[in-house]
């Protein structure tokens, strides 16, 4: 009896032993990719292009089977045309590289280390079917050797290689480490559940651990509006499979309270967005588009078929019924939403990207411009003070250094992009002070445009 029990327990252990490593690798076999990402990554993104393609194909398949397309097969031709146009760009790439991102990529993992100053360091790795010489085709330089591997430069910062069947694109200083995979334990310690099995419809997994300097931003004057959340936010995770799940983890209860409010807002926005999609679908019916002149006859005929159109719209934009679920446990707040609500979140994301993000970027640009103008104004005042004392403006050769030397300025100023101001004098009574914008070169538009003060 005892030996039988021991044997049974041993059998279970063996089974578990066989099963566990399999599970650990199961998030679609991302484990080998995770091992190549920087262990100090702040942001990790796992994507399943195969699932993206399945989703994409699924949408078209549903559309083809919908009552509208089933009753009006001539529409199928137009749909195929549209699809062809959409994939034409990819086909061109395939022809050039012998590689189709949609068909040949299996899994993609990206790790980013966000620095307080300077560009982020990044490693992107992918498994799939890669043709021979792909890195060479992608690269824009002669091959270099790093860690015994052939790598190619994509630009001044990024390198590219194919190693052990893994396509790798990395910042120069991270390339060597990415070519020599180690255990991903440090990364997995930081991002719990990163290697959890993803399921068949796993599409995307994102983990973002706020770097301490970002938390510190909460103390700054600019971020005073969101200091409670920003100072407390530890990690944000987002997962898209059949559902959309967002989890925010905070360091303290006050921050978690704000995170809960944020996700409550997001939940309402998703619901609002889903209702708006539904409304647009109904508007299509109400506008009676089939009666509009100028439409191609097959489209006109199909749009006049109200019953089929209504059923098809119901299929793609149904009445929002499944509300997102908000849950809070201690310092962790999560929001889980159904695919229908993902549609709603796209509406909100669309509005945000169409209105809020450009507005924010414009605000940042304007504030940079205002800061630049203020700084140029203070240099102008220093130049005026110098002239009062010396009877002239500094010469071109003396430049703005003269103002610092004679203590009219405390230190040599630089513009908001870190570029030095250009100073030229064409006589004791005249000067031109220029800021050359983000590119540091004369001319340009937007952030690259120049500003000038002349006397």
């Amino acid at each position, binding site marked *: 009896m005892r030996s039988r029990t021991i044997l049974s327990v041993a059998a279970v252990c063996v089974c578990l032993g066989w099963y566990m490593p399999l599970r650990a690798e199961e998030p679609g076999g991302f484990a080998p990719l995770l091992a190549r990402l920087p262990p100090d990554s702040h942001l990790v993104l796992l994507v399943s292009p195969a699932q993206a393609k399945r989703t994409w194909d699924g949408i078209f398949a549903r559309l083809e089977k919908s009552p509208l397309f089933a009753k009006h097969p001539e529409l199928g031709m137009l749909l195929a045309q549209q699809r062809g146009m959409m994939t034409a760009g990819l086909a061109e790439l395939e022809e050039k590289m012998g590689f189709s991102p949609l068909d040949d990529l299996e899994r993609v993992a990206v790790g980013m280390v966000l620095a307080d100053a300077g560009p982020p360091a990044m490693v992107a790795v992918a498994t799939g079917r890669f043709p021979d010489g792909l890195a060479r085709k992608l690269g824009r330089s002669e091959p270099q050797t790093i860690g015994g591997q052939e790598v190619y430069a994509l630009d001044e910062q990024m390198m590219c290689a194919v190693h052990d069947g893994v396509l790798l694109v990395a910042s120069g200083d991270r390339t060597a480490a990415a070519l020599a995979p180690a255990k991903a334990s440090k990364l997995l310690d930081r991002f719990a559940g990163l290697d959890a099995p993803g399921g068949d419809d796993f599409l995307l997994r994102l983990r973002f651990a706020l770097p301490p300097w970002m938390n510190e931003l909460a103390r700054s004057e600019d971020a005073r509006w969101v200091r409670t959340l920003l100072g407390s936010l530890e990690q944000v995770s987002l997962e898209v499979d059949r559902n959309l799940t967002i989890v925010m983890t905070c360091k303290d209860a006050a921050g978690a309270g*704000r995170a809960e409010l944020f996700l409550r807002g997001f939940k309402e*926005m998703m619901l609002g967005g889903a209702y708006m999609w539904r409304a647009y679908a109904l508007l299509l019916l109400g506008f009676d588009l089939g009666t509009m002149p100028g439409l191609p006859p097959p489209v006109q005929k199909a749009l006049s078929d109200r019953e089929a159109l209504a059923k098809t719209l119901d299929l793609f934009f149904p009445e929002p019924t499944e509300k997102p679920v908000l849950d809070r446990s201690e310092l962790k707040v999560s929001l889980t939403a159904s695919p229908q609500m993902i549609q709603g979140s796209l509406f909100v994301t669309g509005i945000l990207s169409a209105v809020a993000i450009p507005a924010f970027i414009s605000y940042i640009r304007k504030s940079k411009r205002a800061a630049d103008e203020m700084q140029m104004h203070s240099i102008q005042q220093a130049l005026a003070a110098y002239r009062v004392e010396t009877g002239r403006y500094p010469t071109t050769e003396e430049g703005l250094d003269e103002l610092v030397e004679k203590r009219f300025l405390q230190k040599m100023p630089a513009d908001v992009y870190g570029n030095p101001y250009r100073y030229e004098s064409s006589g004791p009574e005249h000067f031109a002070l220029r800021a050359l914008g983000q590119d540091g070169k004369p001319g340009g538009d937007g952030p690259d445009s120049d500003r000038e003060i002349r006397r």
Partner: protein
Amino acid sequence: MLYTWATGKGAPLLKRNVFWIGLALLLAWAGCSRDKPDEKPAKPQGPYASLAARLPAGSDLVLLADLHRMAQGISDLQQDLLGLPAVKNNPALQRQLEGQLSLVRVLTAGLGKELGLDPMRDLERAALGVTLPDGADPGLVLAVEGSFPDDLFGRLGGSPVEEKPAGHQVWRVGDGLQGVVLEKRTLLVADRAHLQPALDASANEAGKKLVAAHPRLFSADAPEFKLRVSLVVPGWLRKRLAGVRDFPLTSTLAGVDDVLVEVADGFALSAGCKDARVAENMRALLEAESRMMTGTQHLLRGAAWWLLVMDLDALPEIPGEAGELVASVLEDREALLATLEQVLPAPKAPPPVMMQGRRVTLKAGPEALQGNLLLVGMAAAVAVPAFIEYYRKADRARDEEQEP
């Protein structure tokens, strides 16, 4: 055969009575279940009858308003405002608001003294009739019941007109408009062409014609309405809309016979359509409107929660007492949350859209009103000018085409 059986020679009295009573009951039942015959237009009944009789008989747009109920609504709103958690839990804000409200009351009383009229108490009901002729200025009559001083228009800055029709003092009150107060009970404002018939209410047939043209306006449904607006789309406008071929919606709008809007506790919008297809389109449009209202409510709630994510106390400091007050409101986040939940409640379901024959009706509760107002505002700000601009361009293009 049945007749012979029941009434034939020798039929017992009971049998004969059963037959005749049965026949009478059968006919009575048939009469009750039969559709009522089309009634001839009757005079409007109810509290608006006397006002309606003064409106232009051919009014395309008629508005009825229960001013007393609206005033009551404003006063209820004031009480609701004081009852909001953010106010109730904040004695300083409560005092401030009560102070502001009594200031409004004092100002209203002062104005009332000057005009001899307290708008919250002395106004009862109003009716407005507008005619929309093709290519001419609209005609207008506004009739209000209440309690008015004889010289109200003089107090409002009007100038007296020399003619005194039927002995009434008439005042010029604006661009082409004239006003009269009748026996301190009825106030009339009308364009010159419509003033005389409006004064002679008992003699004209305007009431009857209005009932015929706007049958739902005087309906006894929802008698406690605050506002009811009926628009019978003029034929010339429908014809012109139908002529605009390449703008979606115009074919549907050209098929709308009339529109009725009613504001009571909630809001109802109903449209009578010329045929089944237009009615189907209208149903889809009103269902879209219903989803937009619900969606807007959710989006407003979302925006409110996102606002609360921020550290509102980091607002730029407002100097003085007002700043302290704002800070005290923003500090009590719990009360602020409860207030938002009260002001922007979660919508339960989209307002229903009903269809009876060729009439489509959307009925929304009071909470959906704010979403609707926002939508109407947005439509007015974007869609209407866009359509007018389009229409002008189309007109210009047509003129150019016709030029030899």
